[in-house]
């Protein structure tokens, strides 16, 4: 069996297996899997509105995935994407609301603020890791909680006791009448282009820049990097800062595109944590992240249609979606299985 064939077959079979097991779960629970999957399909691709919303949902997943993947590639586990995304969201919402500037300055400034906030949230664990060898996983987890509650408090301050910030100025908005009309007035905004541009940026940093060569060196082998005269500390901090900036931009998608403001939250958005799965599904490569984010984003958004159109409770829907992702993540097993089948055939 050729490698190319295997590369195409593995994700296909994974998804089909996930759908099959998901169908069993629906059947056992007394729901109609066919109706359920039709609802899922329609929820993702059913009409131009659904497609628009799906793409909108994919954008923050891409950025969260890039953040995790970038850290992984440099030998770090950034589990704090969630917190970095939350502070990014707030920073963008605040800058978008509080200033009156021409669009050509305002929008980039708001995006930059989000990236900077995320970067700052990455800087702290980066510094602690580099100077005191505190493990970044612990610090980033804790930074998530600090981000969540700090931002909640800040929102109340900014909203003068209210629970959500005022809407951002039009000059800071990623919203697009053109994209919206194209997709039957969905909330699709220019964020997807920002996300795709950042995919390119990650590739460019890692594969073209001197910085990327150093970051990867430190990630693979600190000792050899140090021996080659690189500053391990500087590179660890840089890696966390860049990773955090990606995550912060993920927050900007929500602030400047989807919601146009920020409300206090009882809990995490989940996007940052899903970013870990997105990165791993995408094998930590920039393009892989686009694939992983597309899968996550489509299923997440499309699943919303299953309770309405097929009367399947949201709990069952969550299980079905999790199963599909589970099987995609198990692609390795399927790959090995396929290779064995191929081998046996050859032997005969």
């Amino acid at each position, binding site marked *: 069996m050729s490698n190319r064939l295997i590369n195409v077959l593995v994700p296909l079979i994974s998804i089909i297996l996930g759908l099959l097991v998901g169908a069993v779960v629906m059947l056992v629970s007394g729901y109609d899997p066919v109706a359920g999957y039709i609802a899922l399909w329609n929820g993702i691709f059913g009409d131009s509105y659904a497609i628009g919303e799906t793409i909108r949902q994919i954008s923050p997943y891409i950025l969260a995935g890039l953040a995790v993947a970038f850290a992984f590639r440099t030998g770090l586990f950034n589990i704090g994407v969630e917190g970095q995304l939350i502070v990014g969201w707030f920073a963008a919402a605040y800058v978008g609301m509080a200033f009156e500037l021409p669009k050509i300055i305002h929008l980039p400034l708001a995006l930059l603020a989000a990236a900077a906030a995320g970067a700052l949230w990455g800087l702290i664990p980066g510094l602690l890791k580099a100077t005191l060898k505190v493990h970044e996983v612990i610090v980033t987890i804790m930074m998530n909680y600090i981000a969540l509650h700090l931002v909640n408090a800040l929102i109340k301050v900014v909203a003068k006791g209210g629970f959500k910030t005022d809407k951002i100025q039009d000059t800071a908005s990623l919203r697009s009448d053109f994209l919206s009309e194209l997709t039957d007035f969905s909330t699709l905004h220019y964020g997807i282009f920002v996300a795709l541009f950042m995919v390119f940026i990650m590739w460019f940093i890692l594969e*073209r820049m001197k910085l990327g*060569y150093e970051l990867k060196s430190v990630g*693979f082998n600190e000792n050899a*990097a140090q*021996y*080659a*005269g690189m500053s391990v500390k500087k590179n660890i901090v840089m890696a966390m800062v860049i990773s955090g900036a990606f995550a912060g931009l993920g927050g900007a998608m929500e602030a400047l595109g989807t919601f146009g403001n920020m409300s206090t939250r009882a809990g995490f958005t989940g996007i940052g944590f899903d970013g870990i799965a997105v990165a791993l599904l995408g094998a930590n490569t920039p393009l892989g992240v686009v694939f992983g984010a597309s899968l996550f984003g489509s299923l997440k958004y499309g699943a919303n249609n299953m309770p309405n159109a097929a009367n399947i409770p949201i709990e069952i829907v969550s299980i079905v979606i999790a199963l599909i992702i589970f099987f995609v993540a198990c692609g390795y097993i399927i790959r090995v299985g396929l290779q064995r089948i191929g081998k046996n055939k050859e032997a005969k």
Partner: protein
Amino acid sequence: MEYVIEMLNIKKKFGTFYANNNITLQLKKGEIHALLGENGAGKSTLMNVLFGLYQPDGGEIRVKGKKVDITDPNVANDLGIGMVHQHFMLVENLTVTENIILGSEPTKMGMLNIKDSAKKVAEISKLYGLDVDPYAKIEDISVGMQQRVEILKTLYRGAEILIFDEPTASLTPQEIDELIRIMHKLIEEGKSIILITHKLQEIMSVSDRVTVIRKGEGIGTVITAETNPEELATLMVGRQVTFKTEKGPSHPTEEILKIDNLVVTDYRGIEKVKNLNLSVRRGEIVGLAGIDGNGQSELIEAITGLRKVKSGKIIMGDKDVTNKKPRQITENGLGHIPQDRHKHGLILDFSVGYNAALQSYYQKPFSSNGLMNYKEVTKHANKLIADFDVRTQGEHELARALSGGNQQKLIIGREVDRNPDLLIAALPTRGLDVGAIEFIHKRLIEQRDQGKAVLLISFELDEVMNVSDQIAVIYDGAIVDTVTPAETSEQELGLFMAGHNKSEIVEGSDGAVLKVGDDDHV
């Protein structure tokens, strides 16, 4: 005589590269058959074919005259072929018996039945004189003992043919003697052995016949009794190999490295280098002889900037480089072949090309304005591959995939190519075969002849004697004495290395030959 195993014209291709091309190996019953080849010659590939881990692209395998198709290791097991791997495949926190039955655990009504197995293990152990305690935990027994467990494992599974992959690589000399005794015992009991190695002495002392392969090609099979190490080395490398590298007299000029009363501590703060003085001049090779752990590592790390100096001075050329950053020292004209090539020398998950640029990636032409120029990196790598005979499938191959000798050639190429005034070579030939050792020694002497200074750190006395112009012996963090190879002997060096000074030796108070170079900390 009947052959138990015949591998006839075996071919194995990876991409377009033939790892094995027409290799024939015929094993007689009851013989020890050595498989000799340089690092990367294709020995392991051939054995993996025999063990069912790879499928051959050509040729056939016969076991006891019958053609067989070894599709996976289980088939090999059933055919009575067992492999004693170089890197043991044992679970550290399980007992000997538990490790041996792993994968085919005998059960009684669903419960593990260890007792019977342990009894059987003990019986086999006794029969072959292995002396293994079936209930000992792997983590508690020595490396030599662990290897016997590997041997037991194959015997327990009914192996008639045992493949030993570089079995002496991590053993002490006493353990090697024991292993040889065990091999003879195995033969007495009717087993047959294939011994993979690149150590010529070992082959001469235990094997009956030798099959030599070179760069994936089968060269031929010779009877050990009718050959000698020189001939084997020539067959293996494909040209005459000199065990003693030719070199002319040295012409040292000005001092390039001066170490003055240096004190360096280890990570616990214990002084490892104690008031050490050393001088290396252009045009000479200074060999730093000593037993491992006498401060060599700390000394190198201090010179290269990887470790802070407590007191004292390191002067390179006319600059004080004490406690400078590694890059500043490198740029001041230092080349460094690190002691541990996997830890410091290479980034194993980087390509050969990326690794070739590891010390100079930040300079033009490899990068400018923060951007890498990978075209130049590739060009540079290809030049090093050609100039230093690095055997690889190309600059894009991962460094991990290279054999040890080729990894070392890559590092040496990278360091020498930067044209440093001072080259520090720490254990540059550890674990390498004669061909690679000769190559590396030649390069070091070449550097010297071009007026560069070389500081060679080695635990091997004959290496120090062969290559150096001056020998400085380090003991307990200080230099005991500095001598020239002509005016000393291995015996005298051995005494210095044990901490005796000249006056004691002249008195003759201790005439014992000291054993050095135990290498089991690899």
